[in-house]
């Protein structure tokens, strides 16, 4: 396979609602931003040079449009070129990066646009006069429609089942430990101008916020968001030809789908997809699952819910099983801690614009490795290496992990 680099990152602000944009207009904005970023790094390209697009769009019901990708394809001037859509629940973004990587690594394209967008809050619940219950319903149709949807299963109750099972097994994460994740990620978002939910809060604020799904409280949950995020991926030849500065190389790509029925799993307190995706990605990058915490500089995790971020610390190999709760308590994943997790604010801080989220996370990690993350730049980029992580779907069945390295990270190996 050919070497593949991220040569541009474009992320729109994550907002509760864009009344002034449709989903395809938002996607256009991210495309414009990603081209500007690539050109700032010396690429000198327009959309006409992009040879293909991989679209990350989760939910047709949000967009009020089936096959929304073809309407974006028209709007961003990509007619008569290949475009492929990925839809893998909350992991759509990570899976989209994986497919765009494959597009370039295989030799099918030298320059590929990886474009995610979601606009959920056009959904509207007439009963309550608010958007969220209807947004949640359009997501709940992703649950098994025969056995699980009729029980009132939804995203939070699915994730909380796994977190509760983990608690039954290990006695953590406690409610206070989960709250620490919320405090961290809302706090990190204070330095990210694109984040939807920057907040300086305390553990007590989280504990006192209203109950959503026992024991998740409102501030333990990410908010659904509207945004678009884009990357431009380039082959090594193209990086050299365009004389791009600061390419960030994708050196590991891992994905796995575990059983979408949590009740079928050997241990219900495991997102097995995370473990498999991480091991594949690390191995491809020449890294070690048991030493990964000291081999990377930061991780942009998929923190849809605070308690589930704690499980991810274990499943991605940062700490051993049962130690996630202690690790957040010791400050390990803080922005100035042992391994900064979600320096951008993650989903809890930035919001969750599903198809865009994993592309935002990957882009954020790339900006960190370039030293371009701005006010939330991690100070200690020593290995020149970072990961992004996406999960989603019923029982968080889908997972993707991407390993990225800057030139120093590559040369050190």
């Amino acid at each position, binding site marked *: 396979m050919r070497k593949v680099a991220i040569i541009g990152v474009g992320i729109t602000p994550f907002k509760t609602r864009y009344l002034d944009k449709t989903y395809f207009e938002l996607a256009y904005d991210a495309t414009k931003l990603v081209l500007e970023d690539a050109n700032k790094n010396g690429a000198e390209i327009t959309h006409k040079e992009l040879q293909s697009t991989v679209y990350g769009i989760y939910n047709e019901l949000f967009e009020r449009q089936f096959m929304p990708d073809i309407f974006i394809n028209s709007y961003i001037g990509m007619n008569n070129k290949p475009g492929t859509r990925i839809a893998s629940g909350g992991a759509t973004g990570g899976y989209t990066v994986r497919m765009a990587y494959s597009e370039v690594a295989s030799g099918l394209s030298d320059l590929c646009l990886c474009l995610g967008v979601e606009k959920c809050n056009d959904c509207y*619940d007439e009963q309550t006069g608010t958007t969220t219950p209807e947004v949640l319903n359009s997501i709940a149709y992703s649950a098994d429609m025969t056995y*699980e949807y009729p029980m009132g299963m939804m995203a939070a109750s699915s994730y909380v089942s796994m977190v509760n099972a983990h608690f039954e097994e290990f006695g953590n994460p406690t409610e206070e430990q989960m709250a620490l994740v919320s405090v961290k990620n809302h706090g990190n978002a204070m330095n990210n101008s694109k984040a939807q939910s920057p907040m300086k809060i305390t553990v007590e604020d989280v504990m006192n916020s209203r109950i959503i799904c026992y024991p998740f409280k409102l501030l333990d949950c990410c908010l659904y968001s509207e945004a678009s995020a884009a990357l431009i991926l380039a082959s090594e030849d193209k990086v050299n030809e365009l004389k791009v500065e600061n390419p960030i190389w994708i050196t590991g790509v891992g994905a796995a789908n575990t059983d979408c029925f*949590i009740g079928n799993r050997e241990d219900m307190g495991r997102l097995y997809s995370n473990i498999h995706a991480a091991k594949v990605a690390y191995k491809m990058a020449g890294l070690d699952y048991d030493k990964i915490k000291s081999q990377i500089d930061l991780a942009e995790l998929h923190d849809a819910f605070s308690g589930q971020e704690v499980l991810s610390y274990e499943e991605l190999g940062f700490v051993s099983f049962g130690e996630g709760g202690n690790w957040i308590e010791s400050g390990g994943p803080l922005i100035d801690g042992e391994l900064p997790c979600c320096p951008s604010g993650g989903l809890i801080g930035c919001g969750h614009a599903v198809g865009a989220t994993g592309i935002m996370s990957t882009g954020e990690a790339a900006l960190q490795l370039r030293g371009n993350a701005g006010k939330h730049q991690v100070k200690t980029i020593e290995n020149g290496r970072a990961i992004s992580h996406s999960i989603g779907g019923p029982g968080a069945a889908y997972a993707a992990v991407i390993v990225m390295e800057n030139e120093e990270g590559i040369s050190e190996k």
Partner: protein
Amino acid sequence: MNSEFQAHQIRDIIKINYKYTMGGQSKFFLELMNNKKILGAKCTKCGKVWMPPRINCSDCFVPADWSEVKQTGIIEVSTIVWFTTSAFIENIPYAIAYVKLDGADTALLQGIFSENLVPSKIKKGKRVNAVFQKEREGKMTDFFFVPEDEYLNWINKPEFEGGE
């Protein structure tokens, strides 16, 4: 010139009607509706009993046989839902749990009804009994679970009944 943006929003709805076949799973729903039986599916090779049932074993790639499981089981994990989707918001608070029925190897998601809906009442390890709707439609909502010490109270309510 003042060009302040003004959004135009429209009301719209996407609605599809179905007459959906349960396919190979049909017997599970027919037995539930007609005879208040809960059928698992036992792999003809490894003997694993799948619940929800699947007529083929996904581990061995061979057919599975119908195999009735008990109407009692144990809670593996549960939660109480206090905020939910537009379709269920009238039901809050409600509890759901993964329940391993006696005789099954995997756990089934079901609603847990209780006269005293608190986390300790429905935590891991608690035993539950199935209670059936008197009016059944061949859907998962034809039954639910209750804590074993509440079983008699629930089946004495006019709209519910116990299994046979």
